[in-house]
């Protein structure tokens, strides 16, 4: 195939300019400002400030509470990612087999995708309402007093449940299209070789789904780390208290509630490094090992 190319440098640069400007104004500039303010402790109104070097970072790394929140974030992300993927995969495999009413079934499953995270959180708040929530009453049947907003684990469970429920449809769509792109000939060959449906799934279907699966893995980790903000915020009702929270929510709590700009900037820089590591991981390790068809 013949490679098309520009003969001069100026034209491509000119064509890229609008995009570059947008990236610079909305991404690089805020990043630089965040990095800079993470070395200062400054008056919120912008009057006084003191250069404190790495003090903001040191305070975070020695804070027992920050460690607790970081561990919770890891557990939360693992749970949300695992269950959103597992449930979606199960549903996709089942949906793939259905012939009659398949469209209705798929549409119904995808609906939830349109729900915004704060709304998903709000639905969880309603379902777990302390005095009349249906799920609270459900747990009450087993003599368990479910107290969202009071008990740490109960609140964490409500957050995980809402986050998984919200994410399953996205994964479902991807898994389903992944399944449908597996050639019929391969499946039929597998049918002859292996009689057990379970065995066929693990030996043939699952490896062929790997590109989709790894792509979704990264998407879901990012989702559980960042996009669950709205769910966390509505479930804790803006009052952190003794409730569980994620690292992103902590950035908001310290920066936007507490007006601690330096400490909050340091936390967002830490998160930026985390995202950078995830991105490198995705491109270096995963893209090399997975073969896209």
């Amino acid at each position, binding site marked *: 195939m013949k490679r098309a190319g520009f003969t001069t440098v100026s034209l491509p640069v000119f064509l890229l300019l609008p995009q570059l400007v947008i990236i610079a104004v909305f991404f690089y500039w805020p990043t630089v400002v965040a990095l800079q303010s993470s070395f200062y*402790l*400054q*008056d*919120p*109104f*912008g*009057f*006084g*400030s*003191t250069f*404190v070097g790495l003090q903001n970072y040191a*305070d975070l790394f020695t804070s027992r*509470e920050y460690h607790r929140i970081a561990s919770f974030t890891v557990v939360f992300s693992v749970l949300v990612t695992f269950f959103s993927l597992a449930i979606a995969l199960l549903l996709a495999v089942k949906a793939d087999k259905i012939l009659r009413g398949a469209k209705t079934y798929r549409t119904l499953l995808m609906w939830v995708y349109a729900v915004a995270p704060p709304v998903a959180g709000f639905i969880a708040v309603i379902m777990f309402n*302390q*005095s009349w929530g249906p799920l609270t009453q459900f747990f009450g049947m087993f003599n368990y007093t479910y*107290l*969202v*907003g*009071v*008990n*740490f684990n109960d609140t964490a469970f409500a957050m995980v449940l809402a986050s998984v429920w919200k994410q399953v449809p996205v994964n479902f769509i991807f898994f389903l299209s992944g399944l449908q792109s597996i050639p019929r000939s391969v499946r039929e060959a597998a049918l002859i070789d292996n009689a057990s449906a379970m065995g066929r799934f693990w030996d043939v279907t699952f490896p062929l789904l790997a590109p989709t699966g790894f792509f979704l893995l990264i998407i879901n980790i990012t989702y559980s780390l960042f996009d669950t903000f709205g769910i966390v915020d509505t479930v804790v*009702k*803006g*009052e*952190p*208290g*003794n*409730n569980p929270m994620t690292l992103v929510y902590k950035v908001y*709590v*310290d920066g*936007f*509630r*507490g*007006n*601690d700009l*330096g*400490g909050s900037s340091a936390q967002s820089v830490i998160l930026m490094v985390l995202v950078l590591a995830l991105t490198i991981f995705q491109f270096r390790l995963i893209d090399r090992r997975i073969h896209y068809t």
Partner: protein
Amino acid sequence: MSKTTLISVAASLALTTAATAQTEIELWHAMGGALGETVNQMVENFNASQGDVQLTPVFKGSYEETLTAGIAAFRAGEQPNIMQVFDAGAATVIGAEGATIPVQTLLSENGVAFDIEDYISGVRYFYADSDGKMIGMPFNSSSPIMYYNVDALEAAGVSAPKTWEEFQETTAPALAKAGYIPLAQSHLPWIFTENFHSRHNLPFATNDNGYDGLDTKILVNNDAIKAHFTALSDWKENGLFEWYGTGWGDNQTPFEEGKVAIWLGSSGSFGGLAKKDLGFDFSATFMPYWEAVTTEPTQTFIGGAALFAMSGHSAEENAATAKFFEYLSSPETQVFWHKETGYVPITEAAYDMAKAQGYYNEQPAAEVGIQQLSLDAGDNTRGYRMGFYVQIRDVMNREYGRILTGETSVEDAFQNIETEANQLLARFAKTQG
């Protein structure tokens, strides 16, 4: 261009100039729901009362959100003329000298008579600087008071407790026996920490509760409050107290539903409760105190929020702001606000007017807040001034929640609060450098 178009352009120009002859100013506030409607009504009344100033109220969300929005706007040079800031944000806004015009200066520069002695004693100095100069105009001033279900107390054959000892030994067991949850409260840092200290006249922080300097240390790790929280968790275990989480409403609802007999809330909750059809009679009285700590209980801190005049506006707009403050502090406006919401009237004149109208004969519970704020003052009852206090409250809420869910001990919790609060105070001191 046709003649008619020219005329209409000229006419619209004339209209624009007529409109700009009125000074337009903006107020950012955090009063949602019924309170927000009352604010809008008050502003409408103000706009109708004169022709020079047009005030626009803008609801900005919670207290925290309003403060953050105001700060962001200030940094962008887009600040409103007036911003409502709550008690916990006072150190932030007053610390940033130059962000606001002290209300005392604003009023006297614009020829409005100002005498701090006109204000009731409880509200005078909370939003003042260390020299006693008033910086923010007290707006929705409240104090935590004890609401009780009259029917429940009658059924149990008890009266409202004056002391926590009485509650523990007599009131609570009788209420529990009558099938009620005896006690709930809506804000542990405000009611059981800040006002616990002022009610018992205990120092809350060094440097005269933080007013006299930035190198302040919190004094919250003391035996009196630790004993109080030990009692609270015992009561919770024995069904004499219930905690429904950190949210305000989650703790108020069970009282409104008639499950909880005594609820500690804000004097500003009165208006809302009175408007609801509760299905039982309620009344209110002073916050109880521990006789073991003091036999001479003192007044509580003023809570709620104040209005701050933001700097960076023209002299004309500042004059308009002063005009609104004058209107706001007039006895008529204060009585209207007091009756609609339950927030206390901020001046002696307004209090006298409400008394003269016989309002407290109809609604004795509405007077409790102002009476409690007018109790004997002590060395530690003027208020407190601590930076990053929103975060300090978050730390308290977190540790208190852990005490009440059995995740930590009272001793460890207060140790943590002291350590983390002092770290935050030291960090705040550096932001002012």
